[in-house]
């Protein structure tokens, strides 16, 4: 056997061993779904700390899903931390705004807050998620232009319905476009949740400033400005604004 053949054999053996090791590692290390199930089991045993750690580990690695966010909210709620629970329910609601479980738990977690319901327009705008609106808009877009193309090419027979359909689709497309735009505008608003009590909002970014007002844990506020350790927040309903320590607020 010459040297070239020997190197080739060593390379193949190394490749085999490496692939075996990688396979074994992959088999031994639990996948994200397994971790998710482990977290669920910890929750069911009442070990909410472990459950939260595992859930947050998944979220930190970039995994997402209504179930993940909703379960994190549940675990925080069980641990008595309403602020983070509301935060994660809100995040879950962004993904599935009509999920009755999320809505129910969010209502329950927020029942200590003064009932300041969102306007009907906002609720209507957020009735469908941006993803759903995007798909709907896309379907109308396709239908409109295909119909338009066919109509221009003279492939459609009939006098009234093609034009009427085209007009309807066009109107629907414009409405959906506005809806999607409004939805994107709303969900991209810098809304934050106060995740820690007592939520003392100061008149300036520092402990030396007096507390202007307090907001209970779980309150929705608008993030106006950011500094390294402080966040300027506004409460539009009351026309108030001030500064909170950055570890007491998290953006949805």
């Amino acid at each position, binding site marked *: 056997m010459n040297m070239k053949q020997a190197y080739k054999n060593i390379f193949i053996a190394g490749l085999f061993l490496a692939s075996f090791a990688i396979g074994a590692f992959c088999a031994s290390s639990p996948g994200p779904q397994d971790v998710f199930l482990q977290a*669920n089991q910890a929750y069911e045993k009442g070990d909410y700390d472990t459950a939260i750690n595992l859930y947050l580990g998944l979220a930190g690695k970039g995994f997402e*899903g*209504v179930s993940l966010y909703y379960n994190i909210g549940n675990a925080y709620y069980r641990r008595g931390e309403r602020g983070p629970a509301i935060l994660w329910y809100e995040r879950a609601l962004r993904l599935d705004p009509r999920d009755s479980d999320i809505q129910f738990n969010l209502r*329950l977690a927020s029942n200590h807050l003064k009932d300041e319901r969102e306007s009907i327009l906002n609720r209507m705008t957020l009735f469908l998620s941006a993803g759903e609106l*995007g798909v709907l808009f896309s379907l109308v877009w396709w239908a409109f232009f295909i119909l338009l*193309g066919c109509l221009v090419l003279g492939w459609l027979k009939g006098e009234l319905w093609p034009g009427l359909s085209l007009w309807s689709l066009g109107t629907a497309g414009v409405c959906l476009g506005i809806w999607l735009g409004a939805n994107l505008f709303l969900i991209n608003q810098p809304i934050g949740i106060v995740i820690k009590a007592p939520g003392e909002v100061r008149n300036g970014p520092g402990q030396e400033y007096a507390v202007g007002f307090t907001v209970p844990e779980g309150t929705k506020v608008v993030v106006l400005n950011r500094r390294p350790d402080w966040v300027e927040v506004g409460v539009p309903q009351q026309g108030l604004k001030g500064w909170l320590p950055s570890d007491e607020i998290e953006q949805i």
Partner: protein
Amino acid sequence: MSRPEKIGRETKPVIPAQAGIQFSKTFFKKRFTGWIPAFAGMTVLAAFSSALSAEPKISASVSATELTMNDSITLKIDIQGVQRIDSMPNLQIPGFVVQPAGQTQSYQWVNGQTSSLISFNFVLTPTKTGSIQIPSLTLSIGGQNYSTEPINVNVTQGNASSPPAGTQAPPETSNMNIPTEGLKPVFMTAEVDKPRAYVGEEILLSVKFLRQPGLQFAAQPQYSQPEMTGFLTEPLKQQEYTSSIQGVPYIVTELRYALFPTSEGDFAIGSAQVELAVHTQGNPFDANSFFQSFFGRTQQLTLKTRPIPINIRALPKDKPDNFSGAVGRLKLTAKTDTTEFEVGKPFNLIVTVEGKGNVRALKEPFLPPVNALKRYESISNSTVNNDGKYIFGKKEFKILMIPQVSGQVVIPAVEYVSFNPEAHHYITDATPPITLSVKPGTKTVDEKQALTQVPLGQSQEGVRVLEKDIRFLKTGRIKPGKPPLYWRQLFLMANAIPFIFALGAFIANWQYQHRTLFAAHYRSRGALRKALKKIKKARGLMAALDPIPFYGLLYSSLAEFLADKFGISASGMLWEDLEKRLSEKGVDEESRAIIRNIWEEADMVRFASSTFDQVAKQNSLQKTENVLVKLNRVL
């Protein structure tokens, strides 16, 4: 060591249990001697006449019947109905070392009846373990024999390290506060186990009344307990024992109190006080001794203890939410009084707080609400005890509950927060949750009520919300986070397709319209291309034997080219007309000749069956192609 009689809040000395014992005749004799002043003498004589007329009674008692080898007990011998005893009886009791501990004599005059009582005290120290009997003794008084019942005393080995719970062990005599003015025949002290304590923490107050064995009281000493404002007070067991201070024997009566401060600040425990009358020593054989001691040798004394300052600290501020003021070392347990649970059937949840501290003052532990159980007011019951030093016991809270639904019902953990003054921090104790398996009852409480109100045949059942809780976990799949669909490239590109399609349709339509409008122009523009295609096709047919298709293609290429250029139909085209048009367009003579020549050659082949060789065909083809290109430039 067990005590024959429980000591309560009484401040007066307690009379021990009675047991008879008899002495020999020589121990005492009745005497009626001495000079009596007129008035008092008559009175006392009447009283003593009454006393003499009474039957003598002899009794004895021990301070405890259970003791250890480390303990001592007091044997008290009471002789009623006699006025004088010459000397202390000399007792020999097998199993005990007997030490005389003094003699007292008292008189009572109630409703004209006088009685006398002479008591002898002896300290008995066991020399062996087991059941030892103090034998029955017989005494002859006035020719009559009186016997006492034997007394059984049980002596055990005991634990040398644990102080006796009874009356005879002298606890902590070395730390006893001795009066600064020196030892006296009788004195009292008061001390606390700690000068500083937390609010609610137990402070042990010990008030000691010490007297030398030979001291005789003329009357019952009157004890007044100290002022203890700012404290909840719990009296502990009274103890009586002998003690030796600086070699002098004393009988110590100790009263202990457990004090629980109610608020922070500086307080003082007031003075305890004893008022007593003591006989000074006289000659017992003097004929006037009795009256001297009764009228002339009695000394009135008032003993007081010094006030004790106490500093009470507030509890630390980091109080947990459920803290209700409990201080001590406490333990929490919870159980139900049954194991069978049924909807509508009441049961008790018994929560017990047990340990050291002011048990009576403990408040009910916090029990989170359970909507599946209807809860009623709780009933509490305290059992308080003490070991002579600390108050301990338990407080039970019975909480009546009625299950409202069947199935698994969980009573959550009951929590109790207490402050441990020894550890200086708050401790939260919690019971484990209790899971009840509730069987369906015949009717729920509400249903029973409803049945009485709803007519038969009508139903008013509805959904009853028992407990509002968050909904359970979701088990859907999780996925790596991606940008929203509407921002993904593929989605955006896909959405470009219908737009491009529509745009194409517009362009196509425009082109179509344009071609329709400018058909002659487009026909003229495409004439050469069409003609050259036919030339190319004809070239392929050049080698064929049949020349008709070849020349047919040459002809049609020319004819159609010219028809397209002039915007006329190729069929039925006449040469004269064509030549005129070509001339008008400025086509030169040579080109016109070539066209005519090819035209004729094609006609000859088609209609006269003429034959042409390959060279002629090649020539015709070349000429046609050249003239077409030339004409395209001109036309």
